[in-house]
């Protein structure tokens, strides 16, 4: 505008006007054109240089780095009980955690001391679960808890379930011990928050899987490592949400307390904590769910429980057993989730309802406690109340039914599922994977860096360059590229689903109400569980892992996009409608562009989720990095390679995260 005004004397004002407004679009077009050009150059060079300098490494081959890591592992193993660092630090931690886990296990899952059964038998646990659920939440979830726990017993998985529960509870206890004070601190102090945030980001960016390998180095395989890995994975949400809760207490309220002469302690105890209680309990919920997910995955490093049953069944392709155990995990997840969610809303709901029973609450609580105590006593004393009766007949029925469905699906649907699988595999996955794995490494690296610079700017480019360099150094470049291919393909499909359903949900409150509970439930499930049904449908292939990854990641992407679309101001949409936009135009020209930062965030989260799942898919034939990691756990000579593969996964994750976040910052400005 100013340009046109400064040069009024030049002829052809009509032609003079356009340049300034088009300045911005020109840049945007040029950005996607540059990406296109990079891809074209890549393809051309690929055609010429195909198969050269691909850095491929056979499954059993090792590089120097891997051998060196093996040596480190061996030397640590040899010096575990002599090195002071281990003697006085790592071993001590392991001992404390081990004792805690063993204590809880003795209580509810494992035979303790000279008893053939745990201290508290099934009746006591069911009674306690019901009582606690009722006390912290309401009687409805208490019923759910009782029913859920009983069902676990009926499935014939009582002990496994209790092992999983023990590990989860121990890990949650330890995690909250650190997380809540840290969260409060980060909420109160901006500086603490700045210090803590990058660590949390990093901890949450890493796929669950990769914590495990390095931890076994320090804490051996077993319950202690599993618990520590779980603590590391489960603490960040509680820290983050607690900090957020404290920080989102309205400034006026805190100021009002200060204006009345409240001390820091008073304003913390009387204002900040009570006002953030509800949100903090949601954080606890997140921590519990994360812990459950991690405890099941920790089966890979020999953690006891349901996860182990699933892993063993997956490895022997026993869909029925895997399904039964997977179902038990789901039941446990639902019970824990519902109870803690209800707990966060309890005080509020009870207060509002004006329930006449409220004044009897204390007496009722005491009475309920007495009943629970009696049940615990019975289960401690009598065998019938200690060991779950029956032989888990329901479980074998479920397993058999799942097997039948699998067989039927394989017999009747194989045409369909295999067709689908082959179309995606041959049409999308194979060409892309070939491009990545058969190009010279420097070409792929240069292309990645180029794309990172164009999308995310120079800093993202530098991060990518460092990641590419380190990926080459890990010696598992080729496997890394295979994983990258699967991840990208899955993410593209996730984003397709995300945009379609996200826009649909964002535009229609009805669809949102219908879909959201399903999505919420899907997010609660430990990632493991997703593999089971797709293993039944697609067999043990890369594709199974990809589909599981899509199903695992899509809910997150859909929800983020739906929220992004919904936050587009109604007046903007109304204004667009009033100018005569049709629905398609409103979506493509108003809602999606305005939800652009939600789209990039969804891509970011989608990539991270997909990556963690594609890796878990190593268990069911996805190969590549995931397989390297799993093999590293089980075979000593592959330990170093597994560790390197874990590092490669982290590098991929960091690279994705930095590029998409930088891109998000760019688009939101």
């Amino acid at each position, binding site marked *: 505008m100013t340009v046109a005004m400064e040069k009024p004397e030049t002829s052809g004002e009509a032609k003079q006007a356009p340049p300034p407004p088009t300045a911005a679009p020109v840049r945007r077009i040029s950005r996607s054109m540059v990406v296109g050009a990079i891809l074209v150059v890549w393809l051309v060079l690929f055609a010429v240089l195909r198969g050269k300098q691909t850095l491929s490494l056979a499954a059993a081959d090792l590089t120097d780095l891997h051998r060196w890591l093996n040596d480190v592992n061996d030397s640590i193993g040899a010096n575990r009980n002599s090195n002071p660092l281990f003697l006085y630090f790592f071993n001590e931690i392991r001992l404390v955690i081990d004792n805690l886990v063993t204590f809880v296990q003795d209580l509810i899952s494992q035979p303790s001391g000279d008893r053939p059964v745990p201290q508290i038998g099934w009746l006591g646990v069911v009674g306690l679960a019901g009582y606690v659920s009722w006390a912290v939440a309401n009687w409805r979830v208490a019923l759910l808890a009782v029913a859920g726990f009983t069902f676990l017993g009926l499935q014939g998985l009582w002990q496994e379930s209790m092992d999983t529960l023990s590990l989860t509870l121990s890990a949650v206890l330890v995690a909250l011990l650190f997380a809540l004070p840290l969260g409060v601190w980060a909420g109160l102090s901006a500086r603490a928050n700045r210090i803590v945030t990058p660590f949390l980001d990093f901890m949450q960016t890493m796929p669950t899987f990769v914590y495990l390998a390095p931890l076994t180095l320090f804490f051996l395989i077993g319950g202690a490592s599993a618990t520590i890995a779980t603590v590391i994975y489960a603490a960040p949400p509680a820290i983050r949400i607690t900090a957020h809760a404290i920080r989102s207490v*309205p400034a*006026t*309220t*805190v*100021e*009002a*307390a*200060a*204006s*009345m*002469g*409240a*001390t820091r302690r*008073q304003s913390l105890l*009387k*204002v900040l904590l*009570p*006002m953030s*209680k509800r949100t903090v309990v949601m954080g606890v919920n997140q921590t519990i769910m994360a812990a459950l997910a991690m405890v099941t995955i920790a089966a890979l490093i020999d953690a006891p429980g349901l996860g182990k049953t699933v892993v063993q069944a997956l490895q022997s392709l026993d869909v029925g057993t895997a399904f039964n155990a997977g179902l038990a995990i789901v039941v446990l997840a639902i019970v824990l989730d519902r109870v803690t969610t209800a707990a966060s809303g309890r*005080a509020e709901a009870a*207060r509002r309802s004006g329930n006449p029973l409220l004044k009897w609450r204390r007496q009722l609580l005491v009475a309920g406690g007495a009943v629970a105590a009696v049940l615990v006593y019975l289960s401690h004393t009598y065998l019938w109340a200690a060991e779950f009766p029956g032989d888990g007949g329901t479980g074998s029925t479920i397993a058999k039914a799942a097997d039948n469905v699998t067989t039927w699906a394989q017999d009747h649907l194989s045409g369909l599922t295999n067709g689908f699988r082959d179309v995606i595999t041959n049409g999308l996955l194979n060409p892309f994977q070939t491009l990545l794995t058969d190009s010279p490494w420097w070409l792929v690296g240069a292309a990645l860096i180029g794309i990172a610079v164009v999308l995310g700017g120079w800093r993202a480019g530098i991060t990518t360059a460092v990641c590419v360099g380190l990926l080459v150094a890990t010696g598992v470049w080729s496997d890394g590229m295979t994983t990258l291919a699967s991840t990208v393909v899955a993410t593209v499909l996730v984003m397709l689903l995300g945009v379609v359903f996200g826009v649909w949900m964002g535009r229609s409150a009805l669809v949102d109400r219908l879909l959201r509970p399903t999505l919420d439930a899907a997010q609660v499930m430990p990632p493991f569980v997703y593999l089971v049904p797709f293993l039944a449908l697609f067999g043990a292939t890369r594709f199974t892992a990809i589909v599981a990854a899509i199903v695992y990641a899509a809910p997150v992407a859909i929800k983020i996009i739906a929220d992004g679309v919904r936050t587009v101001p109604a007046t903007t949409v109304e204004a667009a409608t009033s100018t005569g936009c049709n629905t398609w135009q409103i979506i493509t020209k108003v809602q999606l562009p305005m939800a652009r930062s939600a789209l990039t965030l969804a891509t970011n989260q989608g990539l991270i989720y997909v990556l963690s799942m594609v890796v878990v898919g190593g268990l069911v034939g996805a190969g590549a990095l995931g397989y390297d990691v799993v093999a590293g756990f089980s075979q000593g000579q592959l330990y170093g390679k597994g560790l390197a593969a874990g590092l490669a996964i982290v590098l991929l994750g960091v690279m994705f995260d930095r590029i998409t976040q930088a891109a998000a910052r760019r688009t939101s400005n």
Partner: protein
Amino acid sequence: MTPTQTEVPPRRGTPEDAAPTPVISVRGLWKVFGPKADQVPDSEELSGLTRRELMDRTGCTAAVRDVSFDVAPGEVFVVMGLSGSGKSTLVRCLTRLIEPTAGEIVFEGEDIRDADEKRLRELRRSKFSMVFQHFGLLPHRRVVDNVAFGLEIRGLGRAERMRRALEVVELVGLSGYENSYPDQLSGGMQQRVGLARALAGDPDVLLFDEPFSALDPLIRRDMQNEVIRLHHEVGKTMVFITHDLSEALKLGDRILIMRDGRTVQCGTGDELVGAPADDYVRDFVKDVPRGDVLTLRWIMRPATPEDPLDGPELGPDVVVKEATRAVLAAEKPVKVVENGELLGIVGDEEILAVVAGQEGDA
């Protein structure tokens, strides 16, 4: 840019007139946000810059710049300005919710800036109370617990504070709602809770930070009347922040107008309307119905020998609106008399000029 004290003849019981010891006396108060903020007030050069120039030069924002005023006991002192003028920062500086950069704040003979943390807390607990724009209530506590919060902070026993809280709840007209939760109340009622909370501690000074800006116009009027009523009943000194001129004129004994952190003018309502210090104030008060604010003192003219001096008498502080009927009904011009001394006369001409709005800018 020096703050202007309007030069008019002193009148009724204004504070300067009676000159009691002020409750709060603010001298040369500065609040600068930003790096090396404390250098700005002392620097001859920097302190003279406009806000924008200061921002460009140093990266600092001067929210309050060299503000001075006195608040007399029992007075309602209004600080008025548009958003960004520094008025909310100013009121927070008074109890050091925001730490001032320079200047002094003397409260009952004690410089608040010298108080240590403990003393400051004591002052906040017993001497000052604040009412906030967005209420700042605790959603997890009942109304009565919110009102008692300040007393609880002080460490008062439960029975005692409940008794006091219920008293105040009744005083602000919330009886029957003491067991409700804040989010069950309307905005106006929530602010009554805020008011009750401030009154519960029986402070010497009440500070109001735009307390009614978030309320509907009708509710706002109710609440303004409520403040006037409470002021009559409890007679507290009040410092009231607002961006609404009509609210300022309605409540304020004196009004301080701020712009870009500086005092533009400080005076009574009729002084602002009758003798605006500059174009900014003039523009501000342009739409005020002058007859409601100006007194006869502002419109009278000196008596000339031709004027008949046997008309009725009125005081100089009678508002024009109230005098209109009397002046128009009288056959002869009205004499404006104070303490038996003739100050001037007001005829139909002068009254009509104000009421009909013909009088140009003063």
